């Protein structure tokens, strides 16, 4: 049954009033919305536009191609190889899917449980959804399998980076060095934003380190539009970076190989093959070969060294990581006698005619200083003193000259200082003086110290490089030539060719009397080429092999005491061969040639090689002979490839 409300008018009236009230309220709220729109879109529009643009546009640096390194003949020493990396980007909502994707990637890359956990943690932590590197150095099969399965692998993409490749491997490891991740100390004083790129590699050792700022190049930048998960949607603008400079080193890689082989061969029976040599152009200072044995494979560092590999390198008693040519310090032994002879002549303590007597030993107070030749050499002038390497002659010569004059000459010849070579880790050695000893031991210089200094023992230490510098400066007529590794440098795509062979005349004279130098030259000549010389067995025609006299050379042997032989041991007749390897003497040899028109110098140190003449000498001879035959300094026309990459 239908009833009607009689009071409908009353409730309709109330309804109307309240509905209008409600409508008013809604109108007010709608106006508030309009006001908010005005605030956001008019008042703060500019700020939000900037924010939207910042959201959208992302500037990413482009890593430039690292400069290439070649030897003087254009042989590649360090090149770049494409490195295909699997990257994984995670979305805001894709935390779970990353796990699934990694599971699928596992079938292609064999990631493993621990690595997967680590990657997931890294993904969660990554700021702004930066992609993480899943695996580097993929091979073609892995790349194609990932590309093929791309639809099932959301967030996975292949990124092409570059890694360093060292085609000469161990041979050039100490010169070229290697690159690694940028460390805190690498950043010191450098504000290149490029170094912030996670993929960038920084020179850690050798030339890679020394020429880092040239090799690195300049970053390019690409402006990209990115979406909310940081994935690139399109490229807006691109500024190409500038690749690093390509460089030619002064080294001749073939000569280097010859020298390294020769160094190893000489030590075929040694417990450890440890030694170094430096071959230098005495005029230009160009380092033609610089070997430190054993070496290491820099490619291992480029791909990322494992802790086990690193430990093996560190614990090797032959110290493969140490560049002994520039960082190994040894008492120069008898090779130092040429420096003492020059000091004595220059100071006027002796002259070419001065005869000093060798009875087999010299007494100083109650201490006997022995000559290596027990019977004594009798009376010798400076040439004979050098060629016989007479200890007694140099005890007396040093005594007459005094430590101060020897110190002065040693400094002229390059001892006790780091050269301008520029390689990191070069040692200065130790060049003793009165002030040094007072400072270091708080004890005054003793006459006995001068005796020891006279034969290159005691406090005196030097690097093979310094011995090569000394030899070069004596051989070139007294010019302060400095070692040099950089032959040419050019921006990429420019022709990289060595300069036309010409002498660098920038070296200035050390102001050493030429007649004095001639006496030392003659002494060194007789070391090798006189039947009574200490290295007479090295004479090029000694083995009845007719060799062009143009290749004749001069040299000086040396033996550096590692452990002082006691009187008791001497009495017991203990020979060097009976000592453990690490206590045996170091064998040294310095030489230059051709003897009539010197151009090349070589210094060899065989660690624990015992006698200098027997062990280091043949190496020095063969390497110097090979250098003279190749004559790399005058024959840059041998430059095979124009390295214009």
């Amino acid at each position: 049954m239908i009833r009607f409300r009689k009071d409908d008018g009353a409730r309709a009236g109330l309804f109307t009033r309240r509905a209008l009230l409600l409508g008013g309220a809604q109108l007010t709220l709608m106006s508030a919305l309009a006001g908010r729109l005005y605030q956001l879109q008019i008042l703060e529009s500019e700020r939000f536009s900037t924010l939207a643009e910042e959201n959208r546009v992302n500037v990413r640096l482009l890593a430039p191609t690292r400069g290439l390194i070649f030897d003087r003949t254009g042989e590649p020493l360090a090149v770049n190889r494409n490195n295909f990396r699997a990257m994984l980007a995670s979305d805001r909502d894709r935390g779970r899917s990353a796990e699934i994707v990694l599971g699928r990637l596992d079938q292609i890359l064999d990631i493993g449980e621990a690595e997967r956990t680590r990657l997931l943690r890294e993904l969660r932590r990554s700021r702004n959804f930066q992609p993480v590197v899943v695996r580097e150095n993929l091979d073609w099969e892995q790349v194609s399998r990932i590309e093929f399965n791309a639809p099932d692998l959301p967030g996975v993409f292949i990124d092409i980076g570059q890694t360093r490749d060292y085609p000469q491997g161990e041979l050039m490891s100490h010169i070229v060095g290697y690159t690694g991740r940028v460390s805190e100390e690498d950043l010191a004083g450098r504000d290149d934003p490029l170094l912030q790129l996670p993929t960038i590699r920084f020179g850690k050792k050798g030339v890679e380190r020394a020429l880092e700022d040239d090799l690195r190049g300049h970053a390019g930048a690409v402006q990209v539009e990115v979406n909310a998960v940081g994935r690139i949607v399109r490229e807006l603008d691109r500024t190409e970076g500038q690749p690093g400079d390509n460089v030619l080193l002064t080294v001749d890689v073939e000569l280097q190989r010859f020298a390294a082989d020769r160094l190893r061969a000489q030590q075929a029976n040694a417990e450890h093959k440890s030694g170094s040599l430096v071959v230098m152009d005495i005029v230009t200072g160009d380092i033609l070969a610089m070997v430190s044995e054993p070496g290491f494979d820099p490619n291992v560092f480029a791909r990322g060294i494992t802790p086990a590999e690193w430990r093996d390198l560190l614990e090797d008693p032959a110290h493969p990581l140490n560049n002994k040519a520039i960082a190994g310090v040894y008492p120069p032994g008898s090779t130092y006698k040429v420096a003492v002879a020059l000091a004595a002549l220059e100071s006027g303590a002796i002259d070419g005619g001065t005869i000093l007597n060798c009875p087999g030993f010299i007494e100083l107070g109650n201490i006997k200083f022995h000559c290596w030749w027990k019977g004594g050499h009798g009376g010798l002038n400076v040439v004979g003193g050098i060629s016989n390497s007479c200890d007694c002659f140099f005890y007396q010569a040093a005594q007459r000259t005094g430590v101060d004059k020897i110190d002065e000459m040693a400094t002229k010849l390059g001892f006790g200082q780091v050269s301008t070579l520029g390689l990191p880790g070069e040692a200065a050695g130790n060049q003793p003086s009165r002030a040094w000893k007072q400072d270091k031991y708080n004890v005054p210089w003793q006459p006995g110290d001068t005796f020891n200094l006279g034969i290159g023992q005691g406090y005196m230490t030097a690097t093979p490089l310094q011995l090569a510098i000394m030899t070069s400066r004596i051989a070139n007529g007294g010019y302060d030539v400095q070692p040099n590794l950089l032959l040419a440098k050019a921006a990429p795509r420019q022709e990289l060719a060595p300069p036309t062979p010409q002498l660098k005349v920038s070296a200035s004279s050390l102001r050493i009397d030429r007649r004095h130098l001639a006496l030392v030259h003659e002494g060194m000549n007789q070391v090798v080429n006189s039947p009574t010389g200490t290295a007479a067995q090295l004479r090029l025609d000694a083995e009845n092999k007719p060799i062009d006299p143009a290749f004749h050379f001069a040299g000086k042997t040396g033996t550096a005491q590692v452990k002082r032989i006691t009187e008791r041991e001497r009495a017991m007749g203990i020979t060097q061969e009976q000592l453990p390897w690490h206590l045996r003497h170091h064998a040294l040899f310095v030489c230059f040639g051709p003897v009539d028109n010197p151009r090349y110098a070589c210094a060899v140190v065989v660690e624990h090689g015992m006698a200098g003449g027997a062990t280091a000498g043949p190496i020095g001879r063969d390497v110097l002979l090979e250098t003279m035959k190749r004559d790399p300094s005058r024959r840059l026309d041998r430059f095979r490839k124009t390295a214009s990459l």
Partner: protein
Amino acid sequence: MTSLSLGAPAPIGFGEKLWRINWGLVLVLSLIAGIGVVALYSAAGGHFEPWAAKHAIRYGVALALMLVVALVHPKVWLSLAWPLYIASLLLLVAVDVAGKIGMGAQRWLVIGPLQVQPSEITKVAVILVLARYYHGLSREQAGRLVYTLAPVVVILAPVGLVMVQPDLGTAMMVMLGGAALLFVAGVRLWMFLAAAVCAVGCLPIAWTFMHEYQRKRVLTFLDPDRDPLGAGYHITQSKIAIGSGGLFGKGFLHGTQSSLNFLPEKQTDFIFTTFVEEWGMVGACVLLALFALVLIWGFSIALRSQHHFGRLVALGVTAMMFLYVFINTAMVMGLLPVVGVPLPLVSNGGTAMVSVMFACGLLIGVNVYRDAQLPLAR
């Protein structure tokens, strides 16, 4: 046609019914849905798939449904109010038990190929039940506390069920929409004040019942910089999109924020942002003005209705539309915490569109049958 009781107006013919349909309102609704198509086309990066085409088709179907609903006599709705309400409650329970989980909440019920969101049906059902209830009460009765208890239960039952899902947006809409109905129906003002005081008192309890993400949203709303990459990210990005749109917008299909996915849920709750980024304040004002027209129309229909049921239904539907629009836009502009409320006829989503069009059908029906005589059954 037989003559009826004294004073009763003569029944109207079919032509007259069609004439009484507010075609202007239909046009405005279609314009709003058209804006929805444009916005969804843009949200898909300039494609009709997957949203815009379906939206247009769905609107066509819903439009037909609306016109049918508008031509159904209100007495039918009067008698269907309770069954519809009970059914929606049952569906809500079903959702809580067997619903599909999406976006961290159980909101959908999958019936064959259809995904139904029962909370959308609830909004309409509550309006119908309350209108029917107050239709049978006198002014005095409506003002008394005893008669207010039943409506409160009617409102709170679905609110409780949607809170469980959890769907704070729908809960808010049902509560506020219900409150609006009680207000115009004549419930005393002191009761609203008391309820408000009660609600404030209950806040700490509600806090303990809230989900972690809901608390986060509230805290984030109070201090958006609190977690700019987490919970505050959505609203920050939305404000950037709206603000960077400026007066005239970035142009159709040129909205970087939405096309580059900086906007979350750009096709549903944040569709307003998507549209406004490209069309600017001008576009936003046009859209809001269209909605305002719907509201004005709604009020005028409510005020012209000769029967109380019609008044209340019309006002309920209008209040519901207002709440949809206001909560959604205020939310994307950072004036309200983020709750799941779509923008009617613009957001992608089937059930919401159907329920909105159904409600508009009821609204237009009130105008068509504005002088019908309705039984007073309780």
